[in-house]
């Protein structure tokens, strides 16, 4: 069944909160991963694996990941990725 954007965002936020001990109140789309969520460069690598596990896709080779700066960027990236997969299948 096709997930809505809101459901995808919910899964992303819940996964990141659980795995990186993030504060739910800070989970706004404009939150910067480094300055606001205080993720470090290792967290960024781990975040990719967390998202892969949550959505059962492979994204670690995707170049767009390097441009991700905010939580909103992650939301958009994952939503686009899922929509691409849905088109193919």
């Amino acid at each position: 069944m096709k997930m809505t954007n809101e459901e995808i965002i919910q899964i992303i936020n819940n996964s990141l909160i659980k795995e990186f001990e993030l504060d739910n109140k800070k989970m706004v789309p404009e939150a910067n991963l480094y300055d606001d969520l205080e993720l470090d460069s290792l967290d960024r690598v781990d975040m990719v694996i967390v998202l892969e596990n949550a959505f059962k896709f492979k994204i670690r080779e995707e170049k767009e990941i390097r441009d991700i700066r905010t939580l909103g960027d992650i939301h958009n990236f994952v939503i686009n990725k899922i929509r691409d997969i849905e088109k193919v299948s």
Partner: protein
Amino acid sequence: MRKNTRFPRQNNFIVVLMNLTVFILLIVMTIIGLILSPPTFFILKIFGRYETLRISRLIVWIYGRGWLAIIKPFTRFQSQGLRKGYITPPCIIVPNHLSFFDTFFMGALPFSDVCFAVRSWPFKMAWYRPFMELGRYLDVEGASWEESFEACKKEIQRGGALLIFPEAHRSRDGKLGRFYSGAFKVSVATGAPVIPLCITGTGNMCPPGQKLLRPAKVRLAALPPVYPADFPGPLGHMEMRKAVKALMAEKLNEMGAYRPI
């Protein structure tokens, strides 16, 4: 006006006496250390064939022992599990972080060959910096993750112990903060166990933002080693991080860290 409930009411005379005594003795110890260090380096290097980093770490450890002696009249200090055989290098020691003086209490560790992986600001203190550089302490804030990771792995491979504060910052409320994964990633990569080290009381003695010391009961408790082999998979280091944090939270609770004073 808001009442300060963090500290118990203490005799001002004792607080003043403690600060005068401790800071004067600390300055004297630092000056004596700075004077005696060059000949100590020379003697141990020439006659003992010690590595430079081992000598520097030994001096830092002796300084920590001196700190424990200086604060003894004003602090009830207890340690648990800080003995040879219970903690054995190579290992990664992960303490919770409450105060600037937490690192000084590492003089209670049973060995001196410890590499501190810390943020940049301690390197800016001119009187400590030469020892930190000669001891090859790691400035994890000033280096990339990849550089720090390689340096940590080398330290474990040479048989030393690493000390990393997984919270990265001092706790402002005495509670355990968010744990970062770096120490656990190094553990998984090298196979070296993690030694959780629970600290209580240093936040009462000198919390972040305070300049005056206060008498306190300080406790250090080392928990049994946690082995990375128990956390397989690509996110094993994150599972290990969560498990270690849970163990520390339980022990800190048992030690009374979260009880109101």
